[in-house]
């Protein structure tokens, strides 16, 4: 079994914000991290490797420094890594990203199962997984928390919905997007760290992937950001003080006034 995991390096959102006074983006201390959902995806793939043996290849499309992210997951036990990097990829929306990733999956050739995170925390779109599956014409399931083998051709996946869980039968090759319950990411091991340090990571650009510059990056994107601004600040903040009894009374009338159902 060959499993591919798609990971993305994202700015750590906790440091990204617009300064309320100057209306400019505060970039102080914005570090890059691996999208947390993608670490759950890596863990899911490694669990299958542990249990029934599998080759796990991780890939990311991003700037040259996204190589760090690949080395980090290599040090957690992933077998191989590929970096998809080209100036022409800049400005990709989810369509252009999926297009690029689909070309890379085809180039790998023999992939049976693809893991993506549920969503990337920079854009929170949750679209790349399903779009990638569509471009590869393989079935997919989103928000998966458990994956089991049903028989030689089929997987049994448990997915979380708004109203409960669903169990689907999914024939391979297939793609799943995963949530936290897939498993806490394991830590890097010393052995794999050594290997990760020395690993040769191939870099594939548009020529390697046989893509046209018009199909990738900003050129290949359909959506365009026309304005970026700070969310309106809440002007309706109050603080309740006094004795416990007074606070209880105040909160109760506050909720009553706001017509909150249930009070």
């Amino acid at each position, binding site marked *: 079994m060959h499993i591919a995991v798609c990971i993305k390096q994202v700015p750590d959102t906790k440091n990204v914000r617009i300064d309320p006074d100057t209306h400019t*983006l505060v970039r102080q201390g914005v570090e890059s991290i691996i999208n947390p959902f993608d670490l759950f995806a890596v863990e899911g793939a490694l669990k299958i490797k542990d249990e029934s043996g599998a080759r796990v290849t991780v890939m990311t499309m991003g700037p040259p420094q996204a190589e760090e992210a690949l080395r980090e997951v290599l040090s957690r036990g992933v077998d191989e890594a590929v970096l998809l990097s080209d100036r022409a990829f800049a400005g990709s929306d989810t369509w252009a990203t999926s297009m690029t990733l689909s070309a890379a999956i085809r180039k790998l050739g023999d992939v049976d199962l693809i893991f993506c995170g549920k969503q990337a925390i920079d854009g929170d*779109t949750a679209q790349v997984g399903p779009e990638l599956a569509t471009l590869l014409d393989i079935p997919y399931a989103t*928000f998966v928390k458990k994956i089991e083998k049903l028989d030689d051709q089929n997987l049994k996946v448990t997915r*979380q919905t708004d109203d*409960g869980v669903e169990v689907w039968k999914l*024939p391979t090759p297939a793609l799943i997007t995963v949530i936290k319950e897939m498993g806490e990411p394991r830590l890097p091991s010393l052995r794999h760290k050594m290997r990760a340090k020395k690993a040769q990571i191939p870099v594939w650009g548009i020529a390697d992937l046989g893509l046209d510059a018009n199909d990738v990056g*900003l050129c290949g994107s*359909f959506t365009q*950001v026309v304005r970026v601004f700070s969310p309106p600040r809440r002007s309706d903040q109050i603080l309740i003080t006094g004795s*416990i009894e007074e606070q209880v009374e105040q909160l109760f009338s506050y909720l009553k006034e706001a017509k909150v159902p249930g009070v």
Partner: protein
Amino acid sequence: MKAVVDVKKCTICGVCEGVCPFAAITVGESSVEISDECTLCGMCVDTCEFGAISLPEVGTGPGADLAEYNGIWVFAEWRAGAVHRVSHELLGAARRLADKKAVELSAVLLGHQLDKGLATDLIMHGADIVYLVDHPQLGQFTNEAYADVLVDLIRRKRPEILLAGATSIGRSFIPRVAASLKTGLTADCTELDISEEGLLLQTRPAFGGNVMATIVCPHGRPQMATVRPKVMKPLKLSEHQGRVESVEITEGIFRNRVQVLEIIPEQDQTAKLTEADIIISGGRGLGRPENFAILEELAQLMKGAVGASRGAVEEGWIAPSHQVGQTGRTVAPTLYMAVGLSGAIQHVVGMQGSKIIVAVNKDPHAPIFDVATCGVVADLFEFMPAFIRKVKQERE
């Protein structure tokens, strides 16, 4: 590719340097340089008061013949035989857009042996036309069946705009629709409008809600967006007239690759976070697993759900399915009550869209107070039981 600086307009004021989230801008003595780190996010374009920075044009590549596309569609979602309220909300928002563009508003209803009342209900919430597709394969949701039928309908009827709820169903299959049709899709919008040129302006939070972005899809059709539940206002138009059109599906459309083996509805009402109007959430401040009972009592009284911080989940006090935040659920109830949780940014990104946020925390400097609409500085063990007593008293 990167943002472009017009040297004639640039005054080298340096403001752009500080706004670039990727540190791609360097302001030199005599020029502003943009490096390859540039991701074309557009942040600098917006800040430059001299209009000196611009982004290269998005692809005009495989664009659609725009004039052929007309009207606004809403994907109508149902649960347990009734229209889901997100569809009412979408129709409310879309009615306004349709009136602004002077076009028809249609709802698409996919299912099997659905009650006739559903179509009427959609009309009374603003639809001019209801396209109804009835087929045994649509009785249960799967990505492929739903997407492929919707794609087929869109190819035949060509709407200009398609909206769907950003629910576990919409967010799962709508990307397949967009990718099949080769068009753009914006996820989880919280604001929609029509631009002067007639394009759909799709506004949504990014970077965990710290930044808002307005997105357009100039060349692909339909322009597609999923819309966050509980944000748009439904309309009740009991006099509104509309018609229902049953649509036959094209032969051989179902691929049947995926099979639903089992559907297990959540029994625990307090775990239905995304549906809940009221969420009472707890964190490490609760101190012990048993203390979640305090929150459960209030949640039951108010018919709400119980949420939790990752802190509480990591302690093993409550199941991970209750976790709210970056790696848990994103929720936006009418009331979110945060009890004994500090309000770490990873928690806040999952709940800051809530209408009313009440924070109960004994530390007046806890960051949760920055997002709370109503802050209560108190010891939760004193405050919560007293508050529950009050709610009960008022009931009697």
